[in-house]
């Protein structure tokens, strides 16, 4: 045991461990996601289009697109991403405005959030999450060592974020708004904004979510269904939450076996996206479900480890924020599937069916991997010993020397 612990700590101490962990976590979650999307969507896809693979192939296409974005995130040096971040965000704001125009944006389930391009649906609000993280970190780390005054922390990021919230709530999409809020809080926290400001924003954010949750009737019914399930309409919002618990319980410890789940036979709505964790729990049991949680714990550890080992403050803030975004989203998703939170349409990153979400999560993975290569030790090791064959195959440039001071 002691020897094992020693080996583990020795492995954790190696310069490229962060990079390997990022590759492993993103690879495993994406592969598991593809398998489970195929399993969860097979019945509905067959009923809708005559092929069990309809939803799966679309997801696979986005996984390929996501792999390209992963490579892009890994290939382009961090300083270029930082330089490009204002333009990225500006582009996202234009797209968010355009998607609200009927005819340009497509409406699905009451939200006008999608562009339909060549048969694929693109969700600009997903791209905005990463653009906001990159740009927010960019403007916050200009204050060295930290934005000490409230005004420094608030301007110019918070007004821009409010504008984005407004555009997203016009779709309307509360789930994405919550994710964006998590990103804003994460940016301020890791950039070192004053605690008082964070406390205020946190309070306002919670109040805002509750207010937004109550004003729309469908969200309110989800909320009351969560708070008072006994009196809720059993076929209403409480139904979905109930079915999720049923499928988890059916899975037990060892699961029904891959593909053997019952919930996807029209019992559990959105089995392949919002509630895919329930299907994992049903088919792979507690073992599979807890493995997914363990992978997200590993992601939390790795992402924040990369942040801690980065000397570039922009990388530190971006790495930490992206990690928080992915892990909090996973925690909220798992939280409402297991019945700890009211149902919100927040997908499980990398796993849920949903193209843009998967592609952008993989892009975030590419950035994290890039940052992992730019950890001081990793960069030194890669420059000293040369890059591996895979890195040469991918055409990766050697990491740039760490810049302690960023202007």
């Amino acid at each position, binding site marked *: 045991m002691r020897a094992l612990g020693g080996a583990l700590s020795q492995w954790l101490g190696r310069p490229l461990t962060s990079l390997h962990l990022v590759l492993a976590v993103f690879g495993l979650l994406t592969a598991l996601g593809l398998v489970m999307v195929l399993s969860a969507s097979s019945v509905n896809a067959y009923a809708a289009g005559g092929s069990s693979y309809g939803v799966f192939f679309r997801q696979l296409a986005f996984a390929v697109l996501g792999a390209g974005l992963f490579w892009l995130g890994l290939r382009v040096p961090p300083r270029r991403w930082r330089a490009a971040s204002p333009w990225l965000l500006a582009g996202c704001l234009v797209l968010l405005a355009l998607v609200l125009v009927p005819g340009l944006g497509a409406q699905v389930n009451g939200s006008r959030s999608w562009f339909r391009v060549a048969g694929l649906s693109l969700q600009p609000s997903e791209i905005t999450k990463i653009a906001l993280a990159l740009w927010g970190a960019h403007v916050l780390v200009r204050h060295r060592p930290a934005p000490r005054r409230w005004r420094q922390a608030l301007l110019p990021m918070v007004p821009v974020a409010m504008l984005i919230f407004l555009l997203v709530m016009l779709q309307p999409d509360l789930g994405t708004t919550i994710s964006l809020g998590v990103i804003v809080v994460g940016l301020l926290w890791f950039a070192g904004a004053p605690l008082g400001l964070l406390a205020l924003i946190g309070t306002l954010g919670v109040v805002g979510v509750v207010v937004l949750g109550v004003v729309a009737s469908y969200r309110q019914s989800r909320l009351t269904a969560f708070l008072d399930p006994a009196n809720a309409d059993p076929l209403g919002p409480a139904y979905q939450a109930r079915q999720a618990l049923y499928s988890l*319980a059916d899975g037990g410890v060892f699961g029904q076996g891959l593909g053997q789940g019952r919930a996807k036979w029209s019992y559990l709505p959105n089995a392949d996206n919002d509630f895919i964790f329930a299907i994992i729990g049903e088919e792979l049991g507690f073992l599979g479900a807890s493995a997914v949680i363990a992978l997200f714990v590993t992601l939390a550890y790795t992402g924040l480890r990369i942040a801690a*080992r980065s000397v570039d*403050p922009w990388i530190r803030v971006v790495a930490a924020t992206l990690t928080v975004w992915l892990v909090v989203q996973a925690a909220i998703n798992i939280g409402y599937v297991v019945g700890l939170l009211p149902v919100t349409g927040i997908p499980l990153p990398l796993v849920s069916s949903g193209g843009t979400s998967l592609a952008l999560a993989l892009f975030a993975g590419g950035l994290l991997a890039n940052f992992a290569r730019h950890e001081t030790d990793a960069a030194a090791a890669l420059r000293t010993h040369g890059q591996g064959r895979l890195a040469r195959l991918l055409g990766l440039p050697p990491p740039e020397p760490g810049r302690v001071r960023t202007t």
Partner: protein
Amino acid sequence: MARPPATLTRPPSRLPSPRGRDDRPLPPRRPAPPPRSGPPRRARAPRPPDPRRRLRVGRLLLVVLLVIAAGKLVEVQAISAGDLAADAAKQRMTRLVVPAERGAILDRDGTPLAFSVEAKALVANPRRIAADWSTPEIRNTPGAPTPEQRKAAIAQGMGAILHTDPAPFYAALMSDRSYVVLAPLVDPTAARTIREQFPEIAQEDRESRQYPAGDVGGSVVGSASWSMDKGRINGNVGLESAEDKVLAGQDGFRIVDTAEGSDAVIPGSTRAEQPAQAGTEVVLTLDADLQYTVQQKLSAYVARTGAKDGSAVVLDAQTGQVLSLANAGAGGAPVSGDPAVTTPFEPGSVNKAVTFSAALEAGLIRPEDVITVPGNIKVADRTINDAWSHGPVPMTMNGILGKSSNVGTLMTAQRVGPDRFADMLGKLGIGTKTGVELPGESGGSVPPRDDWSGSTFGNLPIGQGLSMTTLQMASMYQAIANDGVRVPPRVISATVAPDGVRTPTPAPEPVRAMSPQTAETMRQMLQSVTQSGKSPNEGTGAKAAMDGYPVAGKTGTAQQVDPTCGCYAKSTYWITFAGMFPADHPRYVVALMLDAPPGGDSAAPLFHDIGSYLAAHGNVPVSTAPPRQVPLQLTP
């Protein structure tokens, strides 16, 4: 929140924090921060936060969130999993009925008279269709049909596929109901085509009962149709009803998980299963070809004579099995029910066979005995005439039967006496149900012996005042054909279980009605009826005679009761004929009844027609002996 001393900005973790949480060493091989000339000390400004502390707090929060979720997961998947899984199983578990295929009804050679095929009922929910095609999303889609247009398209498509008028479909779809049956029995292939084109249409399992011979044998076979209550084919009339339990079999079941909102079975989810026990096949004694011909000839004859209805029964002379049983309504139309076994009538002179059988059995007469028969006879308070007016004439017994003399018959009956007559009537099965398997059988009616008044015995010997069915009439003559042994008629010869095991119907208990000698003498005497000859030596049923076959039979004409006065009507009659051939060794017994033909036509020509077909159909050898000729009436 604890903060490091204000003077320190980095690296803080090298120094113990006030709460002692940061005393872990730095990860090894971590480069020391570059030497610095000293961070600016700004005691007055707000203390800058430590980025590493914030990372650690962030990591802690993330892990705690996930661990809480994992804790709840343990609760759901392990601790309360049993109750939840039981509820989940309850909502998915479905008991699916596996319908048992109804057994076929076959004729004696295995020709199907009734069998079942799989069919589908096409149903729809018009309200739901209207709602689904009225949602804002559909309405905003350019080119989407309105609910009315959609329903019209469905009706048109169904009409095209089913080759029927689409208007009833459209009317049903436009009704404001949540369940309509658009087509009750649709071929499964057509149903699939329709459902592929129009997913709004649902199907339900049905069974369609086919009668390939049409109305032929309809009186015996009856009919069956889908019962919504029982969820299966249910017999309505005839053997379909009487043998319903045998034919239906036993539905099986499967306990499975099904998809929400449908009966789609989730693969591999069968918990329990009991296969359906298919229904038993019923093999009849009927001969389908014979049945068809007899039905045709009877219908044509009823139509030609203008009778209100009529019936015909053909029995196998030895076994008493019913080879054919036909009914016809006015104009030869099919009738509902089976009057040949359910509706008795007064037989008239056909019943004289009882009187003469009893007299022969008692040794009171011989066929060639001659008695002088007056024109009428007084029995108690009634005077009975012969059908033709005559003075006292010497007639043989052959002649009394062949010319159907009421007076001569009653004179003979007086010698037999009511007791021996009643005994013979009972042995020949009159007043008792034959026990045939068909539903609603009547046993006819005979006044109880104790109630007989003086005039009763002036009616019964000539076939008035009692009633019998056509089947009973045939059975009575079957006893004469079968050397005095009456075998009660049966219409089911065997049942064939789904496993192919054939169980013959137990033979009914035979009844000896008369001695073989009496039966043989009766067959000879009855040939007098069909005897052709110069008047007065011609029988009443000469038209029943067949070339090459001696025919023994008896005509009958019974006055019907006029319901307006309760008395015997003067002009409406039951016309009957019962007979057998070849008279020396009978193969077939035929009984015919015509209800009130306006012209009072005899049924003898119909016997001739049916008999000729039977002779060919049954390959009956032609008799070479010359036709029997006996004196009926001696010239006075």
